[in-house]
Every structure is written in C-alpha cells, then in structure tokens.
C-alpha cells in the first residue's frame, strides 16, 4: 500500500466514506463497522491472508477492483441455505450478479458481526442494509467520477450507467483503498455470569439507520432459485469439514465418560504401553481421555482405559417412563412468562356453560445429528487459543471458551467449518466437544482433536426437554371458543454449559431456568386467552455433571406448544361438530391464515366434514384412513400442515400416506431452497411424531444408538406436497426451519379422524396407539 490516509470523509445517510490511501495494484471499498471493536492482534491478523488492513475490524463487504465482492458474516451455513440467500440479498441491493459474491462465514477473526446462525430475519436484515448503504456509496463515487447526478444513474450487473457514460464497480475502486463505515449497535459477546445465557448478548451487531432499499416489485435475484454455494464442494469431497482439521503434532482424543450421568471419578484406568506405545491418559477432575497421534490407537486404548476405570455409583433420574410424573412433582410457583389476558380469561372460563380440557405431553427428544460432535483446539504456550468448530454461535463459543479457561476473549480465535447439522443445540455456543479439546490441549501442550462417538453423543449431548401442557377452553352454545388457557411445564432449554468444562470442574457461565410462550396467536377472534409457560431446572440438575442438560431444538417452543394448542383446537372443533378447517377459519380474521388454509385445503383435496370420519373404527386388521390439519404462525411466516394417514387397529401401526405443507413467509427469497426446507422439515417432524423418544433409567440414558433412538428412514417417507405463497407486501418471514412443527398435531388429528381416538402424547408408536385403541 502506498500513499497516506485521506482525511476527507463524506457522509452518506449516516454512513461515512473515506479514502484511506492509494494502492499500486487492485483496490477495494471496504465496508466496516462504525463502532470500535476489538479484534485479533495485529500479529494474528498479519497471518490472515484475507485481511488487507490488519488494524481494521474485518470488513463486512469488500468491493474489489476485479469486480468481485467478498461478504463476511459471523453467521453460518447450518444446512438451510444461507450460502444461497445471503449472496442473493446482497446482489439484489447492489445490482450485481450473485455469482460474483464470495461468502466468508463464522471465523471470529475475519467476520465482523456475530449473531445467531438461526437468526434468519435479523441476519438477513443486516446484510440487506449493509449492501444498501454500500450501494448508495458506490452511486456517490460513480456520480463524482462520471460527472452525472446520482438521480440519473442506474446499475445493472455492477455496471453504472448514466449521461451516456458507464463505469464498473471495479473501476470505481481501482487503485484506491476506500473505507465505508456504516452505523451499527450492539457488541460481540463477552462472558457475563449474570447474563441470560451467561453472556452479555449473543445477538451480535445490528446495522442501524434506514438506507433506501429496493421495493419487492423490483426484485430480480430475490425470488429466484439461486443455488446454495456450499453444495458443489460437498458433493465432490473438496469441502474441508471440522472433522478434517489436521495440525502438526495433533493428537487424536477419545473421551472416557462417567459410568452414569452423575458419577464422579474414583480411579482412572491405565494403559498397557506395550500394546499402546504412543497413547496417554489425560485427566482433569472428572474429565478423562486417551490421546494418541494415531486415531485407531486412541480408540482402542480408550476402550481399555474405560474397562478399568472406576466411577462412583449414582442414581437420580426418574426413569423416562416416569418423566411426566417427575415434571408434575416439581414445586411450581409462577410462570416464567405469560401472554394474554389473565383476568378476562379466568372470568370467561368461570362463567362458561361448556368447558373442555385436556393434557398434552411429550418425553425427551434430541437433535441427534448423523455426525457426532468433533472439535480441535490448540492452546499455545503464549496463551493464544484457536478452536476449530462447527458451532452455530462462533462468537458465543469464543466467549464461553475464554470464560472456561479464564483468559480474555481477545485471546481466543474460533474458526468455523462445516459439519453435521446441529438443529439448535449449539445455538448458545455451549454444547459440543470444544471445551473437551481446549482442556486436553492445555494439558497436553499440543493441538488435540476430540471426536465424540455416537453412543457418547446420544448419551451426553444436550436434549430437548420433556413437557406437559394443560389446556382449558370455554365454548359458547355454538361451540365457538370464547376463552382459552394453556399452561406448559418443562425443564428449561437454554443450558449453555459445555460438558467438558462441567466434567473438568472449570467455570461455566450458566443460564437461568425458565420457559417462554413461543406461540404466535393466529386466532384473533379468541379474545380471551392466557398462555403460561413454566420453567424448571434440568432433571437431575443438581448432580455433579449437570443432569439432562436441556437445549433448544429445531422450531423450539412452538414445536411443543403448537402440538398442544393445535391438538386442542382440533378437539374443540370435534366438540362443536365442525370441520377442522372451517372451525379455524371461524376463529380468525387474519387474511394470511385464511388464504393459506384455503390454498392448502384445495391442494390436499380436503373434504369438508367434521372429524372423526363416519367410518372411523377402533378395531380390526384392515387399515383405516384419516386426515388432520394444523396451522402455525412463526416469525412472520404462516404455515399449514395436512396429514393423510392410515392405521391398522390390530397392530397400532400408523402410516402417513401423504403430507401437504403450506407456507406463506411474505416474500419468498428462494423457492427451491424453501421447497427443500419444507420437505425436509416434514421428514424431521414425521420422525419426531412417529418414533423419537430419549429413554433413560435411574442413572443414564439408554437410547444410545440408531436402533434405540430411531429416526425416520427414506422408506417411511410419504408423498410430500408443497404449497408456497409469496407476497410482496409483508416483508420477509422465517421459512427455513419450522415445517417440522406441523407434523405432530396434524398426524394426531389424522389418527383421531380414522379411529375417534385422541392421542395427546408423542411419539405415536404402535404400542402407544394400540393402548389408546384398547382403552
């Protein structure tokens, strides 16, 4: 770089553009934060070839002289298509082709913003504004260069034209080092034991102000099925996954976990050095591992150490068959959150002529990725810690690792890489193998790669807690709901403590147990409603190792609460003798609900009639068919699920023959990616509805492989029909994850339609269905 910083600054809509200097080759416009943020030291940044100015925070966008664009975000590809819709969104506001954009994700030392990878709406708004500010700055530069007013300029594919002249974005930045600072608020997370999940905030940085943005009617890239950029390298084997990290001198580790969820170490087993010459046992408190330069030696030696290690006995779990009883037995005091009108709802229920009530429940389920947790950590003697991870919260993980090791956040670098989907368990930057790896690397003085096994993952990773919901409604003479009260009771699902730190007895910033009301109310005609959510600590949370650590899982809160709410709406419809779709339409004036319900009903050839079906049967060996419906509103997206199923009463085997899923998420960004997410969401929802439950005895989890924790196979997948409605007048909604939540209530309703039997617990296994049919 040559030349001096040009102090002249120009302000554009609250963003400030300045020329930092001139360069011999290349040139770029760097878009960065207008808030001072501390990042890696100059020395660390110097090793980072993508950071051109090592003293600056990593830029958000770079417009380069070769007409390519680099976009950086701390949010990551979790399998729902961010590598498609982020470039689309940026390209739309900049008027460039999305193929010219390279996305760098997740690394804490080369991305500026932090934030939740699941935070589609906030992340999307951020990148859109970043691009919009940049577009205005580029127009200003072009206006100066061409001598044409901004109002006379237009841009297509990165070429600015006006007044008979044209110039590319690349030419605008050629030979210069320009910097655009855009206004932001928020900070990157720091440990804070008093914070909600033990952190200051995991929201990351938010772009403020209101730069002009394109109207949906003018979109050219948004609304097309631009391919997600992560796919080709994954298909050819070129992607470097977090499990592929190899460092000089790296040791492979296998963990030796306690005998039970609450056991502590009595004595660690030893290694036969003749048999395993390069393996070693590492231990810190109850954290026990075997490391070796050779992975197979680590596996075998860890098995032999496990065989001779002694742990204390412990039993403090209720057993999974008693989980509802255990939740009921908690001394509940008051809800963590309530929504609605308490007094009016109570009064309406008291004075009701007809009341219905029911209890819904579910056992523990879990995220259960195909790839167990894996991480590599390198704790250097100079105190710099680098962690290679697939966590969905890189900045949160960074702060958490710093807290565990008792070092400043600035000393930790988190490098993100692809891995198996996590479905929410790493959202708070806690669950995973990273703390194991960091503690072991500190002990070994070498980089350590920790690979969990499937049985270990299914026994020790965090879980989506069991819950119970009590539902009560008052009906008027026509069967219309005039008041509804729901109360959900559950262990909390925001435990961010890393297992490795818990076992090693190191500091863990924890969260406060609590529940929340997740449902977004679609029934505006039900004026008197009260929704209560109660939270309690983990089951066996006072044990040495934290008990069953709860964490959020795909479509959290609503997945559970919507099963209760929509199941109960179906019960009320049946009590009123009404068709379940017509009944819903009678309880709302929300045109988005109405439009989508009608479209999905038509697509599914829905026959208007009450449930159960006139042919409903509780016995016999012939399959009986039924259908059921549910709706959901979530994050400005509207959803409908319609299940068609058959059940054989003599066996209780429930089979889904067709599932229609409808979504109206405002403007659809990428129809094919949404189609993929809707169908895959239905598969995950079917899996949960039909098969999934974590089983445990008094001391440990017992569903620790794919034969005991069963998930849906391809052979069990029904025909899935997708209905999409895109509209230009409602902004953007969250469409990528929620389809799974539609399956359980719709399927339980289909079972009712076929048999007249109401299932109020998940999963709908043959044993459970049989017991209902025989009752």
């Amino acid at each position, binding site marked *: 770089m040559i030349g001096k910083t040009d102090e002249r600054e120009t302000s554009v809509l609250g963003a400030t553009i300045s020329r930092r200097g001139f360069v011999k080759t290349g040139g770029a416009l760097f878009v960065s934060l207008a808030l001072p943020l501390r990042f890696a030291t100059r020395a660390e940044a110097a090793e980072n070839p993508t950071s051109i100015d090592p003293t600056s925070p990593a830029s958000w966008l770079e417009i380069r002289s070769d007409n390519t664009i680099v976009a950086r975000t701390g949010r990551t590809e*979790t*399998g*729902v298509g961010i590598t498609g819709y982020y470039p689309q969104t940026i390209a739309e506001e900049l008027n460039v082709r999305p193929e010219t954009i390279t996305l760098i994700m997740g690394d804490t030392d080369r991305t500026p913003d932090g934030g939740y990878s699941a935070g589609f709406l906030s992340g999307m708004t951020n990148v859109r504004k970043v691009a919009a500010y940049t577009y205005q700055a580029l127009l200003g530069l072009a206006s100066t260069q061409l001598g044409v007013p901004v109002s006379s300029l237009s841009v297509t594919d990165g070429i600015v034209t006006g007044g008979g002249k044209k110039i590319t974005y690349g030419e605008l930045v050629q030979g210069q080092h320009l910097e655009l600072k855009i206004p932001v608020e928020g900070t990157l997370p720091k440990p804070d034991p008093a914070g909600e999940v033990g952190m200051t905030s995991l929201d990351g940085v938010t772009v403020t102000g209101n730069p002009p943005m394109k109207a949906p009617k003018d979109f050219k890239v948004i609304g097309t*099925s631009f*391919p*997600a950029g*992560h*796919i*080709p390298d*994954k*298909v*050819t*084997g070129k*992607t*470097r*996954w977090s*499990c*592929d990290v*190899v460092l000089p001198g790296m040791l492979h580790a296998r963990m030796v976990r306690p005998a039970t969820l609450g056991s502590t170490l009595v004595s660690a087993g030893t290694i036969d050095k003749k048999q395993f010459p390069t393996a070693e046992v590492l231990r810190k408190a109850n954290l026990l591992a075997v490391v070796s330069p050779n*992975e*197979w*030696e680590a596996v075998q030696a860890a098995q032999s150490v496990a065989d001779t290690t002694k742990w204390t006995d412990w039993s403090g779990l209720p057993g999974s068959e008693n989980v509802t009883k255990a939740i009921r037995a908690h001394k509940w005091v008051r809800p963590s959150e309530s929504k609605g009108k308490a007094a009016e709802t109570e009064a309406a229920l008291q004075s009701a002529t007809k009341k219905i009530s029911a209890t819904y429940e579910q056992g523990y389920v879990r*995220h*259960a*990725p*195909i*790839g*167990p947790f*894996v991480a590599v950590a390198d704790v250097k003697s100079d105190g710099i810690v680098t962690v290679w991870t697939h966590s969905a919260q890189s900045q949160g993980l960074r702060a958490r690792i710093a807290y565990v090791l008792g070092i400043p956040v600035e000393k930790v670098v988190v490098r993100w890489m*692809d*891995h*198996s*989907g996590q*479905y929410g368990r790493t959202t708070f930057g806690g669950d995973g193998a990273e703390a194991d790896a960091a503690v072991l690397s500190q002990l070994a003085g070498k980089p350590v790669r920790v*690979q969990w*096994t*499937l049985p270990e993952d299914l026994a020790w990773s965090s879980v989506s807690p069991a819950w119970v919901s009590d539902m009560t409604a008052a009906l008027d003479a026509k069967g219309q709901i005039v008041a509804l009260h729901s109360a959900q009771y559950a262990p909390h699902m925001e435990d961010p403590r890393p297992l490795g730190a818990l076992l090693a007895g190191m500091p863990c910033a924890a969260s406060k147990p609590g529940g929340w009301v997740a449902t977004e109310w679609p029934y505006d005609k039900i004026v008197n409603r009260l929704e209560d959510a109660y939270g309690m600590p983990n089951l066996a949370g006072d044990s040495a190792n934290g008990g069953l650590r709860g964490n959020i899982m795909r479509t959290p809160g609503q997945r559970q609460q919507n099963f209760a709410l929509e199941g109960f709406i179906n019960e009320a419809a049946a009590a009123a003798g009404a068709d379940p779709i017509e009944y819903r339409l009678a309880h709302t004036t929300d045109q988005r609900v109405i439009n989508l319900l009608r479209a999905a009903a038509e697509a599914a050839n829905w026959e208007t009639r009450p449930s159960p079906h006139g042919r409903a049967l509780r016995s016999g060996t012939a399959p009986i068919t039924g259908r059921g419906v549910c709706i959901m509103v979530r994050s400005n997206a509207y959803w409908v699920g319609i299940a068609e199923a058959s059940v054989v009463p003599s066996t209780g085997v429930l089979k889904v023959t067709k599932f229609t899923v409808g979504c109206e998420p405002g403007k659809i960004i990428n129809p*094919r*990616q949404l189609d*993929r*997410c809707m*169908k*895959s*969401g*239905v*598969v*995950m929802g079917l*899996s949960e509805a039909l098969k999934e439950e974590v089983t445990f005895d008094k001391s440990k989890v017992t569903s620790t*492989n*794919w*034969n005991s924790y069963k*998930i*849906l*196979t*391809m*052979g*069990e*997948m029904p025909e*899935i029909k997708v209905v999409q409605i895109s509209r230009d007048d409602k902004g953007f909604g969250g469409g990528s994850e929620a389809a*799974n939540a539609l399956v359980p209530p719709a399927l339980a309703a289909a079972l009712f339609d076929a048999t007249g039997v109401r299932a109020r617990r998940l999963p709908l296994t043959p044993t459970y269905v049989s017991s209902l049919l025989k009752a």
Partner: protein
Amino acid sequence: MATELTLSVNGAKQTVTVDPDTPLLFVLRNELKLTGPKMGCGMAQCGACAVLLDGKEIRTCITPVSGVAGKQITTIEGLPALWAQEKSLSASDSETTLHPVQQAWIDEQVPQCGYCQSGMMITAVQLLSKNPNPSVDQIKDAFTNTPPSPHLCRCGTYAAIIDAVQRAAQAMRGEAR
C-alpha cells in the same frame, strides 16, 4: 503391529503402513486424506462412511483395512474418474465432468448440512449401475432395505435424494431433460 498394505483406491495403487485391524475409514481419512467418507455411528447403522468395494457398498467404519487389499475401493472423490472410465471420456473431458450422480446432487440442491450425502451418493451409484430407471419405491428400497442398514439423513433430504437419483438416471441413460 503396523503392516504394509497395498490398496487400490479410486483407480490408483496406494501403499499404507498401518495396523491391519484399523477400520478402512480411518485409513482413507487419515492416511490417504480422502475425507469424503464420514465418521457417523461407527457401528454400520447410518451409512455416512459408505464406499464402493468392487462396485458394492460397504461400511468402512467396521471394515478392517486388511480385508480390502486387492479390491477396488471407490469414494466420492473417485466418482468422476469412474464415470470417465465407463464412458471412455477423453482426458480433458474427464477432468471437467462430474459423475452424473454428483451433478444431479448439485442440480437438485440435495445437501442441507451434507454430512450423510457422501454415503447417499455411493448408494445411488450402486443402484443405478444395476437399475437404470428406478421407480420411487425402488429408490426407497435401495436406501432403506438393501444396504447393511438404512442410510439416515437427519436434515431430512430424502425427497431431494429421490429427485436427484431420478435426474441422474435420466442423464446416465443419455436422455435430455
């Protein structure tokens, strides 16, 4: 005891010095740096580690490396070469042509997280080598009942996989879409 073994992987001879009991998966990933196959369950219950052995799917997480010497091993990294060989493509064409199964996986936007998809593509290649025009039911059977265990995808991409297998089948039959 470490022993020298010669393997035939993706059309090339490879010599490794390893404990003969080492699972093939670790040899492929750690010795030969072929990281397409993934560590999943470690007990042949999920299919993430699948490769072709003489054209038939095996689970490398439970297969000792000593048992595969002298046989042809194909990972997803070797699928383009396999296709080039089958179609006698020129050297330049073979460098730029993916196996139709891989191309269909891209065109149908199959992977979500993608962790299981290496194994899924292996099964697809095996299926299409025997059945050039599989029905939806035959595809479901090939991923569920035929392999050592059902191929599992937690993201739930089964519908996309079915679309992609049918697209690849069409391409391999030489039919335009």
